[in-house]
């Protein structure tokens, strides 16, 4: 919510044209799962920067906790154990909003100005305009937005739009101890991903690749995956 109106690209349920006076570069967060150790520092940083605290839950027989995205957990780690050809892998993925170039949530939203897409690519929710209809939940191909039971507003990752507006990396990227979360211009992130993919291929991951799904016009949260197939 920190970016200026000059940087608005699209606004939900709004027909007036967006401002055109200046251009910003497209940004992206790159999550390199091959160097992610699943420490959850990103979850903690998200809670602390945004000053939200989820409930103390229960253990459900897995490392994942909280188990799901909620109105107060805007990012969670997902752990899966995969055994193929006698080789075990513990795949760990940070889940959260993908900040699509063509955001389904925004298109579905009937409340004027409740969802904003900025020219740098961030898709942000403005809760003061949210009517709690839940259309964004239906419109999202990645099952990300969550409606609060307390105030009936929709919440999700802001990509720390307030930090990015003042040239700071998102809190999760700042906190990541191994550099598995990188942040910068989308072009730079693609270049960085290419290097990581070639390293993984050299280590035997023949199908390593970048995940930047074109079905939603590409995303502003991308992944380097061991198995992009």
């Amino acid at each position, binding site marked *: 919510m920190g970016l200026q109106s000059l940087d608005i690209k699209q606004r939900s349920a709004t027909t007036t044209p967006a401002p055109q006076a200046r251009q910003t570069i497209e940004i992206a967060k790159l999550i390199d799962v*091959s*160097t*992610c*150790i*699943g*420490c*959850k*520092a990103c*979850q*903690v940083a998200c*809670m*602390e920067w945004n000053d939200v*605290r*989820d*409930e*103390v*839950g*229960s*253990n*459900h*027989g*897995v*490392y994942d*906790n*909280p188990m799901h995205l909620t109105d107060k957990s805007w990012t969670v780690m997902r752990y899966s*154990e995969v*055994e193929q050809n006698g080789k*075990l*892998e*513990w*795949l*760990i993925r940070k889940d959260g909003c993908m900040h699509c170039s063509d955001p389904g949530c925004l298109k579905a939203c009937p409340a004027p100005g409740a969802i904003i897409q900025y020219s740098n690519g961030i898709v942000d929710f403005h809760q003061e305009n949210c009517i709690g209809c839940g259309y964004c939940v239906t419109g999202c191909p990645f099952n990300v937005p969550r409606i609060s039971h307390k105030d009936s507003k929709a919440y999700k990752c802001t990509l720390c739009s307030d930090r990015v507006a003042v040239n700071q990396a998102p809190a999760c990227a700042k906190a990541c*101890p*191994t*550099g*598995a979360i990188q942040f910068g211009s989308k072009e730079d992130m693609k270049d960085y991903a290419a290097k*990581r993919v070639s*390293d993984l291929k*050299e*280590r035997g991951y023949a199908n390593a690749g970048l995940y930047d799904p074109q079905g939603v016009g590409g995303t502003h949260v991308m992944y380097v995956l061991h198995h992009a197939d």
Partner: protein
Amino acid sequence: MTNHWVDIKNADLIFVMGGNPAEAHPCGFKWAIEAKKNRKARLVVVDPRFNRTASVADFYAPLRSGSDIAFLGGVINYLVSNEKIHHDYVKAYTNASFLINEGFTFDDGIFSGFNEAKRSYDKTTWSYQLGPDGFAKVDETWQDPNCVWQLLKKHYSRYTPEMVSKICGTPKDAFLKICEYIAETAAPNKTMTNLYALGWTEHSVGSQNIRCMAIIQLLLGNMGMAGGGINALRGHANVQGITDFALYAQNLPGYLAVPSEAEPDLKTFLEKKTPKLLRPGQMNYGQNLSKWYVSLHKAWWGDAANKDNGFAYDFMPKLAGASDVLSIFDQMYQGKINGFLCQGFNPLASVANKKKVGDALARLKWMVVMDPLATDTSEFWKPHGEFNEVDPGKIPTEVFRLPTTLFAETTGSFTNSGRVIQWRWKSADGPGDAKDDTEIMASLFLKLKEMYAKDGGAYAEPIQKLTWAYRIANKPSPEELMMEYNGKALADVTDLKDPTKVLVKAGDQLPSFAMLRDDGSTTCGNWIYCGVWSQAGNLSARRDNSDPSGLGQTLNWGFAWPVNRRILYNRASADVSGKPWDPKRAVLRWTGTAWGGNDIPDMRPDAAPDQNVMPFIMTGEGVGRLFSLGLMNEGPFPEHYEPFESPLDNNPMHPNNPKARSNPAARVFKGDMEAFGTAKDFPYVGTTYRLTEHFHYWTKQSLVNAVVQPEQFVEIGEELAKEKGIRVGDRVKVRSNRGFIKGVAVVTKRIKALEVDGRKVHTVGIPIHYGFKGATKPGYLTNTLTPFVGDANTQTPEYKAFLVNIEKA
């Protein structure tokens, strides 16, 4: 660490065993990732569990917890029998060619000199053959059957890949694959770093696990090299600091030995403890002990310590017997201790066998707990449902809680695993009435001193005469303390070769421990910290990260002990003639007139290569010890012994010798041997460990940590779960012979059943961190389960390998 955190980025192979740095040291682990990204380094993990570190490794192999020496002994055998060693390095810089006493034997698991009744060794035969000149004899051809090389070869020839697989449960091909990875680093320009932590120390053979790696790194020529070394990853941000300042009762600051009753005067003490020169021309730096020790007494007792009274030698308490943590709690359990000052310590949670610790605390008259948090220990007397079933009516102990400030609420320093001392600044005031630990301790001392003055008492002198020159007597400042540790000149310090030359003026802070004297003219509270606060000021506060070496040495960032040296034994990074083994990662080189390069030389600066002064300057022979003489309590070569609670009936290395089943030299207290369980009742190997979401027993008190890992759990493999009818998320009960805990079952592919000595062995993984105080769901203290036995040298308890049973709760 012999090296340091940033140096991990220089490695070609990162070998992780006995640790799980991605989990327990996520910030430092970034350097392993850097090595992978930028040097194409390989990461290999050996652990009972496929853990978070394994999730980003190039290769992983399982082993049974408690079988590390068998695995590493197998690696030694592979390197020696395949000649995959750095031959020039081993020849010049180790004791491979040294001849060992002909009386030294090893017979079916027992070394010469064993006293079964005392569970200890007479180590006389674990020694070098000495020539008439008093120096150790050597055989440069390595052919003498009593030379270290031949003895080493013979000792480890028994650790065949088949034997490794039989004891460890590691598949033979996986073991051999790892041997190949390791053997590649025998090349002079390849290095392996080894990262370990409590996964090696918390065994009854903990120190010998590490000794194995010392032997391997010497054979490979990886000691002293950038990207090499043996690297202990310490837990708390300042646990290296507390260790440097006498964590163990048998040590004084700077790892000086505490005098015992067998050393009635200073002269006897110094004669006994000062190492002898064992080869001609070597530095034998330990010969300076008298300077360090006398300077310590001068720091503590000032003018009251003088030549006439042996520098107040009598003021130093003499070690009368074991005073390690297990021994203290055993004495408390026997009712021999009345009062307990518990400072920054949560023993009910962190010492083995919670029942015994709780019973011990209940036999105290009083306990004072100094801590920033309301710890489980401070409420050991209070019922907390099923998690702490006690009857306060039967516990007479009076408990006082003194709230202290937390690290962020004080100024001071942290010493990290890489021995880098870093000053830090207070960022907030403590809450309520919390006081700094120093203020509480100082106030207590001043009160005692006053009481002795008023009421008298036995031997008041050491207290009355303790140096106490702080500006505010009850609030010694961190700056004053650091200056005191560093030490100063009381009189002009002159050059030992030229007494007319003044090196340090009277009253000045000392620049290095080379300036310490044993005539009472210098003070030093901790000799290894000498130089941290010289006349140049507080060097630990330096924050210049410029790095001309490109190796991450950053010599102007903080201050590393000793003398700001970043890589220990760095003389060994160059060949005998002084040329770096790997010019791309040069740490040190002989410039023609002196040693120079990217570090503070671990060598006399003017010792020309042709003088043959060897790199391991703290040993009397100047070389690294493949054979460790009498320094270890259970033998000069590590030997595999089973954990005290083992699923096996005997030690597969010595199936017919019950004396060699478990560590023959480990101490077991009366009553504790009976508290060991057997595989009949407790068939599974239990092992405890940490999670990245938590720090020991602290962060269960913090809401954000509780949110991300809220509740106690237990990890088991799919096969065991199926056998026991346990499903993901079920509540389970884990029992040992000492008690039980309950937790949620995490059923995982990451823990596999292993084939060990012809039978199937399952592992039950038990994260620590939970307890009855905190923001997480209340839980059981995991040390309810663990056995009260420790390593034979350090007495670190065997938390990593014991026996349990498991059932649905």
